[in-house]
């Protein structure tokens, strides 16, 4: 079941071929290694550009987003796989 989280998180990223590739994120003091980035999409929220990453990690599904106006990462949704 997908839960709406919407909490600020820390994300470790790599820059590959001029693109951002999230490698892991830390939420509630737990580190989640990202197995696969399934989809990246963009949106505009009140004029600011956001990048959304749909990820797989340890059998779960997560959606994280980067707010380019405030340079913040958010965990938006989580589906822990149980």
């Amino acid at each position: 079941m997908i839960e709406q989280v919407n909490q600020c998180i820390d994300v470790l990223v790599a820059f590959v071929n001029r693109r951002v590739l999230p490698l892991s994120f830390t939420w509630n003091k737990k580190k989640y290694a990202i197995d696969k980035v399934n989809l990246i999409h963009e949106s505009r929220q009140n004029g600011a550009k956001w990048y959304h990453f749909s990820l797989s990690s340890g059998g779960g599904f997560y959606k994280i987003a980067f707010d380019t106006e405030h340079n913040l990462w958010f965990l938006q949704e989580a589906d822990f796989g149980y």
Partner: protein
Amino acid sequence: MSLNKIVAHLDMDSFFATVEQQANPRLRGKAIVVSGKEGSRSVIVASSKEAKKLGIKTGMLHFEARKLCPDLCFVEPDGDKYNTLHHRIVESIARYVPNFEVFSIDELFLDFSACRNFSEAINLAKKIKLELKKVLGSWLTCSVGIAENKLMAKLASDLKKPDGIMVVDESNLETILSSAKLKDFCGVGCSINARLDALGIDSVLKLREYPQSALLKEFGPVGADFLFHLARGQGQVELASAFEKVQPQSVGRSYTLAKNTSDKVDFLSVLAQLIEQVVVEMRRQKLSAKRFLVYLRYADFSGKVFSWPGSSFGFDGEKIFFAVQNTIDNFVLPKMVRLVGVRAENLIPVGNQQSLWEKDRKKLSLLTKIDEINRRYGDFVIKPAYLLKTTKMRRHVGGFKLYD
């Protein structure tokens, strides 16, 4: 054999649902539908291939879909996802085909005339399919129909779904035409199909035998010409360029109410916001409408349409709302209302023509500035006073949604 034109129709399979499955692998292989929250009164916007196999179709109500599949998974629509992927599709296609037409968010017509024959066209279609998988993700597939015109290319793409390539050429044209139902053709909607049915025409072959003069009498010159050519597998070959701005014919918004109501204040507040959304869009595209419609759908799905000449309103949502309010106040509702909608139609570009009256020019200038601010900081940050008491709505796939 030399061909005049080769047109391909590319259709993303179950687009919205497959995008959701691409984003979340846990949904893959499952029957899912893209729709409003389960239990809400919204209809199914899209269904996955697995759900389609169970008979779940776009437009179905939640309980109808649930009856067909008790384990059905509901996913809320995410327009930004579909929009981003649509732009990625267009960018990828542009690398392979210089001339193409965007037909909808998940459908394109491609000019394959650079191919000398159908086998070259099939190879090009295979390359494009591979590229799309690479760019969009492995779960997203598309079907491609290839023919000498748009009508048959579109029909062909429906014949080999999902993930297929289908060619309509001289060798199979007659077989396909004789087995296709008239409503399978793009351009034959429920109303035309019913009128054809009333004339005893229920197949392409019967349509071909029907006298052209009688078609002309029933459907007028444009409709008769379209049907005459359809019966022979002929259709338009010209593509509207994806890079040319196509002027919309209408701008509309509708909303299914949270519950059926007879309270006019309830649905007038929703109508006020829909009207404002429509006029903002018209101002953005610099269009004016010759006709303005408001429609009510009753609980039994029958309805009532009210119309006004658009010229009397210009760009002003407030004027429209007060005209609508006045009409609705004097109208006796025969049944409970389920859905309300607004549509501006017969749109014409306004260009740089300004109003002769200074008061109108000032108002338009003010409204345009307000629109700019709202685009930057969010819908209805600044709004006209007549919207003050309305519940805030946000943009949503297929319409609008009240804020939770």
